[in-house]
């Protein structure tokens, strides 16, 4: 017979088993099929869109835009839908009772489930990023070869071609793109934690999905709107000011993780700043998982 005291301590191994199990469960639900759609998007943007633009460097931008859009959509939708169904599905399948009947602390159960879902997102993002970098690199090299051939053939406006070559060289795969992808991943992780928190007190999976989407939407536009309102604080009055502070206090700020727009247009984020964003994201995850635990621990199952 096992010593029950052993199970009172936090066990990364137990969390790992739960995470692996959740990962398998999601893989069986064909979550990775999205990668096929993504590869189609990347290839279409690489092969077909070139006929729609005059600027060779813009072709690479279009590829990046479409790919990051697909990654953001996948990250957001998956983080909400998959996490929202983690607990309801286990309740429906009665797996939750089997697991909790064993000496598994509820926090470990929540953490394991959350990490399993996030593992799917991280793996998918890594594969998508790899695909994007490979296709982007191949397209960049093809365009560079084209431009170099024009230069070698003594085409007029050699200097303009040299400018295009410089732009193409700057628009290939870079560490900035990786930071943008990491920020999308981080955003999905925060959103997953928020959704898990909502699902601990939600009456249904649908309710969780709707509320999580609302929180995400408000969390995204709230910082921009608050920034705008702050410019006219005096005219708003103290009641409106108080309302703004309450909104700021309650809703998570997703705007901090929005780096894609600026990275795609060629800006580079200093690593120190990226680590600040990373720290912020991980704090959100810890706090929301903790809040989720307080409610889940008290839940009658």
């Amino acid at each position: 017979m096992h010593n029950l005291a052993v199970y009172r301590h936090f066990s990364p191994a137990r969390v790992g088993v739960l995470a692996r199990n959740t990962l398998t469960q999601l893989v069986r639900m064909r979550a990775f099929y999205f990668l096929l759609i993504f590869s189609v998007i990347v290839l279409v943007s690489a092969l077909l869109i070139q006929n729609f633009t005059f600027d060779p460097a813009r072709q690479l931008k279009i590829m990046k835009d479409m790919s990051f859009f697909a990654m953001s959509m996948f990250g957001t939708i998956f983080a909400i839908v998959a996490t929202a169904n983690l607990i309801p599905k286990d309740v429906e399948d009665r797996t939750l009772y089997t697991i909790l009947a064993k000496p598994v602390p509820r926090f470990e159960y929540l953490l394991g489930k959350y990490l399993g879902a996030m593992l799917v997102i991280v793996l998918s993002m890594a594969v998508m990023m790899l695909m994007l970098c490979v296709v982007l690199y191949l397209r960049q090299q093809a365009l560079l070869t084209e431009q170099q051939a024009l230069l070698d053939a003594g085409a007029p406006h050699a200097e303009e071609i040299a400018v295009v070559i410089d732009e193409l060289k700057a628009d290939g795969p870079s560490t900035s793109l990786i930071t943008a992808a990491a920020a999308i991943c981080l955003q999905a992780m925060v959103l997953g934690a928020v959704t898990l928190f909502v699902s601990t007190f939600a009456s249904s999976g649908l309710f969780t999905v709707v509320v999580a989407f609302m929180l995400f939407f408000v969390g995204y536009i709230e910082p921009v709107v608050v920034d705008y309102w702050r410019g006219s604080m005096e005219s708003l009055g103290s009641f409106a000011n108080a309302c703004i502070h309450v909104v700021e206090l309650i809703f998570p700020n997703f705007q901090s993780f929005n780096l894609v727009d600026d990275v795609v247009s060629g800006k580079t984020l200093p690593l120190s700043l990226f680590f600040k964003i990373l720290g912020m994201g991980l704090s959100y995850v810890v706090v929301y998982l903790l809040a989720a635990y307080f409610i889940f621990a008290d839940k009658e199952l």
Partner: protein
Amino acid sequence: MTKARWIACAVLVAFGVIRIPIEDRLAADLKAHQFHEMTIPDGSMREQLGQLGAAAALGGFRSFLATMFELNAIAAYRESDYANVETRYQLVTQLQPSESGYWETAAWMMDSNARRFYLGMDNEVDVKAQGKRGLLAQRAVERGRRFLDDGLRYHPGDYKLQIALGNHLVERQRPADFCGAAEAFAKAIEARDDATLPTRHHALNLALCPGHEREAYVKLRAIAERLVRGDYPIPLDQIPASLILHMRYLEEYLKIAEDDRFPINLDVLRRLYARLRPGFDPATNTDERHAHVLRRLEDVLAIPEGDRIRF
């Protein structure tokens, strides 16, 4: 509400109190690195984007939306629907003003393509319509200029935008602003190390800018010297004719002593004059630079008064 729920709420509120100042600092840091320079879409932009598009613009899909609207603009351009090209590019540049290429393409679409399209509709004899076309072309040029000016407000030192402005001031603006063009090309030179093209354009436009004759001469001569004595020297008669023309004109204007003048083969200029003169009609000419070149050619080649073009 149960105790656990109160605790959860308290944790979230406490976290909110701690994180807001940190997030404010983070937002300021990001802005200091030119990140998150977005604004709330204004009324007309919201109308064009639609509520969903405006939300998407705020929700981190600005770059993607700009790309989609640019593809839309290019589709409109293929159908010569320049009204739509203009509105689409207006949106594109508002969505992503940090992308200098959008401003340049928008300006080129309007001041070159749209202008040519409106002026090219000359298969009708209706005088009113002709007049309207002229107005439309003029408006397209003004719109192109506005795109350039707005773009340069965001990217004052951008190489391509400065070159586009320099070309616009000479080729589209009436009367042409050679001094302004020279200044724009000078800014383009500052933006790039090996800016041979703007260096030449800067000197050539300076040669047509009153009060800058000596400075222009020094710069033109330096370019010519570099061409014949640089790393890849070219023969004297292969120096671009425009360079030779303005140099010789300025040598006479500045009364440079014969011995100090740059060795020039006047046959190159004679050939240029013979090529340009027949097709030139001062009544229909719209290229001021062309007229200046012919005027100077006549001065340098000492064409008799009776044979000269009557400008």
